[in-house]
């Protein structure tokens, strides 16, 4: 909480972003205390990891200090106080924190807790709700991340001529030759990170984890590689349009699982159609869609990062039309 207030006062954006990363990390540890291990895992990798990284990259392009605000933001303060007051007022009739008799614990959730083992056969209830009961939300989530990736591409992608590429190449190589130790350590680390990502990907049924977290970790490995070996080397290893196709394949894999169940006469995303035994079908379905999530998330994260970083090396900033 102190951190949040510090963020309001700070003018140095670098510190602000670092603090917001810490805020993400703290809320992740709070989620662990609240029994939400899956969420904590995601928040730690997203709130403290990816989003901080993105903000920092963006900051290198936009300058780091904030101008002081001249006028007194009384109106804003008033709006905030009214909204906050209304919320506090709303909390007055809420069930108490931690109370087991609250309506949310009595109505829909008990079925998930008591019957998901028979219906789906996966110990991690979060996974079964995420990937089966509310699988369509998750499909929407994959599409959201796909949309963001496409949006970033539309905004930031630059088409380079070969000679410019060569210039950037030489620049990068000289920059990165120095960190020999770092490079060797990273080279050793990356296989382990990738292995860990795969573990998280396929272990989501039993412990915390799943496609999204795995995708983020996988992307982190690639981003780490790109940071140390230079963008152009990384680009040479991983082709841009190739990743885009991968992102599309992830969404399509998820969707086609649904379409297959449609074709087999069941409803969209009804995995029991996938196999003769409904529980086995659920297993297979969850495995496939988690894979779809993982592939899309990893490729979109890489796309987003590459395009942010690629913009930075871009000497000719194509300004928009200035005319009215």
């Amino acid at each position, binding site marked *: 909480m102190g951190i949040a207030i510090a963020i309001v006062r700070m003018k140095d954006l670098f510190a602000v972003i670092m603090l917001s990363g810490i805020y993400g990390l703290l809320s992740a540890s709070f989620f662990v205390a609240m029994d939400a291990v899956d969420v904590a895992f995601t928040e730690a990798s997203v709130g403290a990891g990816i989003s901080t990284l993105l903000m920092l990259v963006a900051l290198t392009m936009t300058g780091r200090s904030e101008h002081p605000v001249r006028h007194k933001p009384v109106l804003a303060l008033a709006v905030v106080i009214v909204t906050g007051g209304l919320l506090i007022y709303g909390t007055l009739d809420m069930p108490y924190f931690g109370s087991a008799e609250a309506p949310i614990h009595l109505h829909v959730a008990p079925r998930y807790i008591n019957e998901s083992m028979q219906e789906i056969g996966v110990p991690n209830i979060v996974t079964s709700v995420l990937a089966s009961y509310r699988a369509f939300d998750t499909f929407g989530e994959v599409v959201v991340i796909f949309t963001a990736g496409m949006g970033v591409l539309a905004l930031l992608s630059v088409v380079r001529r070969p000679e410019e590429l060569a210039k950037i190449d030489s620049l990068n190589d000289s920059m990165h030759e120095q960190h020999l130790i770092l490079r060797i350590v990273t080279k050793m680390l990356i296989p382990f990170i990738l292995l860990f990502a795969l573990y998280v990907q396929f272990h989501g049924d039993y412990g915390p984890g799943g496609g999204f977290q795995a995708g983020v970790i996988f992307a982190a490995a690639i981003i780490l590689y790109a940071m140390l070996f230079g963008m152009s080397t990384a680009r040479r290893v991983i082709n841009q349009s190739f990743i885009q196709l991968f992102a599309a394949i992830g969404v399509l894999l998820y969707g086609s699982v649904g379409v297959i169940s449609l074709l087999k006469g069941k409803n969209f995303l009804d995995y029991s159609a996938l196999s003769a035994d409904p529980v086995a079908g659920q297993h297979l379905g969850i495995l496939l869609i988690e894979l779809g999530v993982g592939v899309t998330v990893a490729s979109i994260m890489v796309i987003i990062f590459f395009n942010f970083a690629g913009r930075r090396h871009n000497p000719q900033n194509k300004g*928009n039309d200035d005319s009215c």
Partner: protein
Amino acid sequence: MLAHLPILQVIVPMMAAPLCLFLTRPRLVWLFALIVSGLAFLISCILLQQVMTSGAIIYELGGWDAPWGIEYRIDQLSAFLLLIISAVSTVVLFAAHTSIQKEIPVDRHTLFYILYLLSLAGMLGIVATGDAFNVFVFLEISSLSAYALIALGKDRRALWAAYQYLIMGTIGATFILIGIGLIYQMTGTLNMNDLSMRLPEVAHTRTVFTAFAFIIVGVCLKLALFPLHLWLPNAYAYAPSIITAFLAATATKVAIYLLIRFTFSVFGLSFSFTTLPLQILFVVLGLSGIFAASTAAIYQKNVKHLFAYSSIAQIGYMIVGFSVSTTTGLMATLLHLFNHALMKSALFLALAAVMYRIGGVQLSQFQGLGRQMPLTMAAIVIGGLSLIGVPLTVGFVSKWYLILAVIENGWWPVAVLILLGSLLAVVYVWRIVETAYFKPPLAGSEAIKEAPLSFLVPIWVLVIANIYFGIDTRLSIQVTQVAAQSLFGVGPP
């Protein structure tokens, strides 16, 4: 396959979007997107027909029954909205290929269609779903793609407009998320139908009151209801012309749909209109929206800005109809929803054609266009007449029902104000007519030709629809009447 139509309606455009990446040439992508959108339109026609004959369709996703899984629930209202959205999208997309040639760099064309399809899928998803949280997810799909699409505009102010829209839109969405969280906490369910049954038990609590307030404010931010409209004019004015036509005709309509859905179906009529002074609040906001925005429209120099402000005013009419909260009032709102989609898509498409030919839409550039682009300008005139509410156009039908509803309720002053508001529309439409027809063409503009057929066909399809539905009102009135009655719980379910 017929039983799966509700889900196909949404996933067809949604899965077509990533498929676009596999097509190499922008022209192919355009054709593909057009076919997909047409398919969605076809599906929505069949769905509307099914719903009108046999009542609401329920589709359980993943085969899980309702409060545990997510269900799609298509009733008359949602089928009507699905039809509007997919129809407008298809017609507008027809002109897209020509229009974006001059407005968007070629390497962005494929991305443009992908985002367009995603936005379409997001809006269809919001309307089709029967699950409150699913609404949030699809809202974000449609808004994120809309932000990116607006930012593709040629002018650098498109970026700033998109950024402002992003901030406002995300605040709106987060408010809705808070509201959904609060009602979920009080009832333990996210399914709309289940919510409507369980909410009355806890309706007196302060938590539900707060939830209602947050959802309404969040939706009104998306709706650009006066005075939360500040993001809209720039976003519409600087977006690529095709996107303006598409969003103006659909995005705010979806927000109106959400407003109706939450107040009538989820919270229930008696709660929505008794706990808060919502009726009086909305009448006042609606009317002041009409006047403030119409007056602002008169002073605009950019014609896209002008019609954007007029959109805010038209939202005011819909809100007035909504706040009457009688069957006729709601009918007027729904009719106006449909009619406004027709008018604004026709008008903005015509502006897209002007943009294509002369590269700008400043009012001063319109001088003499009446002779140089006669068909396009005629379309703008008819669209404008419809906006004013002249008989024989669709605009007349909805204004007629709106005034009828207001008078039924004995709100005479409101009726007078609505008529006065229409006079303001006369003024701003006249300014365009005057410049285009009664001023000599600008020097050096002799080379300007009529818009190409790829514009004229969709524009005139919409214009003819404007006149057709203004004369033969059976279809639109029947559908809106049944939809309004079912929301009030009278008549066939």
